[in-house]
């Protein structure tokens, strides 16, 4: 849902920026490790995080050793946090990806949300130093959109859409964010012939309350699409908590593509940005006892 945070968590543990990692939704989780130690990094939505009760910093790698419990509380400063694992996740790719789409039966090692008792095979922590990454602060600016492809189905309602204050409904999920705000009416009704959708397509069903299609979206839809959230702002929208108001702002395709390129450049440059963490203590005992193969993370509870 939030590519930049995913990439940041991965580079902190030396992975490819878009390697598979664990996405932690708004509720909490507890994790532990068996047969060794693993290096992890936590980014994205802020939430209480503790290693055996001791508070844990975000955007900084750390080692979880056998016998310790990593506790993640309820998200406070967003919706999704990312937990990357040094060496990545072992699994069987489908269509070139380990990503989960439970509806389609896709995802490895589990084709669904993680549950209590699940284990993930991972690599043991290497004797690297802990690293820290300071990301540019996210501004509370409007969410930028490119109008269309069916903005001509709305007439003056496009102005209502851009002038309105919106909140995300609690019934939203990874497939779609339902918006609550002013009524958006159609010029010719809400039935169009189904056509293709993208991440960030904003479709308006007959209820007049738009739905922003998110990464688990269908590949086509039959409600007119008034606008598309630009790629660079989709992660920021994904992290918007239900009930917190925001606005949209229309930009040109050219400006949206400039923002896309800037974001892509930032993600590419991430591996060079982390610096050595000042206060990170390396658990030498854990590293010495680390078993190179057969280390496993144990999701004790996924609340």
């Amino acid at each position, binding site marked *: 849902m939030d590519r930049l945070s995913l990439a940041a968590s991965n580079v902190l543990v030396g992975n490819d920026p878009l390697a598979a990692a664990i996405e932690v939704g708004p509720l909490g989780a507890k994790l532990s490790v068996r047969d060794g130690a693993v290096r992890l990094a936590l980014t994205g939505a802020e939430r209480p995080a503790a290693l055996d009760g001791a508070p844990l910093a975000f955007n900084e790698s750390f080692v979880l050793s056998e016998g310790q419990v990593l506790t993640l509380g309820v998200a406070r400063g967003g919706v999704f946090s990312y937990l990357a694992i040094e060496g990545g996740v072992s699994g069987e790719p*489908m269509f070139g990806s380990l990503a989960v789409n439970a*509806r*389609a*039966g*896709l995802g490895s090692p589990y084709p669904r949300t993680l549950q209590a008792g699940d284990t993930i095979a991972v690599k043991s922590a290497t004797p690297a130093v802990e690293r820290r990454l300071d990301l540019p602060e996210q501004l509370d600016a409007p969410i930028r959109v*490119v109008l*269309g*492809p*069916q903005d001509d189905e709305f007439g003056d309602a496009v102005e209502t859409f851009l002038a309105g204050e919106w909140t995300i409904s609690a*019934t939203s999920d990874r*497939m779609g964010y339902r918006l609550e705000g002013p009524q958006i009416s159609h010029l010719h*009704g*809400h*039935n*169009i*012939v*189904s*056509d*293709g*959708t*993208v*991440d*960030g*397509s904003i479709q308006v*069903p*007959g*209820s007049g309350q738009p739905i922003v299609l998110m990464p688990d979206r*269908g*590949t*086509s*839809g*039959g*409600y007119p*699409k008034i606008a*598309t*959230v*630009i*790629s*660079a702002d989709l992660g920021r929208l994904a992290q918007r908590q239900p009930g917190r108001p925001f606005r949209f702002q229309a930009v040109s*395709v*050219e400006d*949206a*593509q400039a*923002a*896309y*390129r800037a974001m*892509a450049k930032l993600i590419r440059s991430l591996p060079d940005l982390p610096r050595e963490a000042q206060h990170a203590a390396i658990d030498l005992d854990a590293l010495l006892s680390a078993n190179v193969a057969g280390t496993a993370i144990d999701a004790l509870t996924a609340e």
Partner: protein
Amino acid sequence: MTTLPPRMLPSGDSAITVEFGRDISDESNRRVLALDRRLTQTPIAGIIETVPTYRSLLVHYDPETIGFAALSEHLATLALSTDDSENAAKRHWRIPVCYGGEYGIDLEDAARGLNMTPDALVARHVAGNYRVAMIGFTPGWSYLSGLDPALAMPRRQAPRLHTPAGTISVGGIQTGIQCLPGPSGWHLLGRTPVRTYQLHREPIFLLEPGDTISFARIDEKEFAERDDAASRGDVVAELLSA
């Protein structure tokens, strides 16, 4: 016939909707599929993926490789010089459907709205000769052209969050086969035991755009038997011509 140039509509910063028409027409769909084939044969640098639909081709691209204006121009030129004549349907499938009751909870309401009996609605739906115009939404969702205009009905005001696997439904002037459980704003007429998408079966996707379809009415007992066979990987749809 005059061939109009398609409209190039931005779908955000990394996709273009190449729109050949606004309605369901086999002519537009043929042009969509022809442009899609052309792009497979002669790829354009920067194009990542294409999604053919009834009336438009959605082209996902990388804005770091090619910009909106340049790609639009390129696609417009290709679309006008692409021959859509070799697009004849090659396969015909007969798909079993159990209509009404718990299998199609909207059948009675839909029939009332159309001022006909549920049986008359089913008879008209079964009589249709359909063509797979696109595969989309969720894996295996097959959108069909060829619905009897007398069966057209507006989509529901608010989509349902949960509809069952195998649902056969009508939305607007479209009908379709939904493979996986999921949200839908269409009217649910029945269910088929056929899995149009099944992981670990060969082929994973049963239908392709251009295939033709007819439906056969089955009862609950037959549904249960074929559903059981389908769960073990049987295709359970009849391939009538190859």
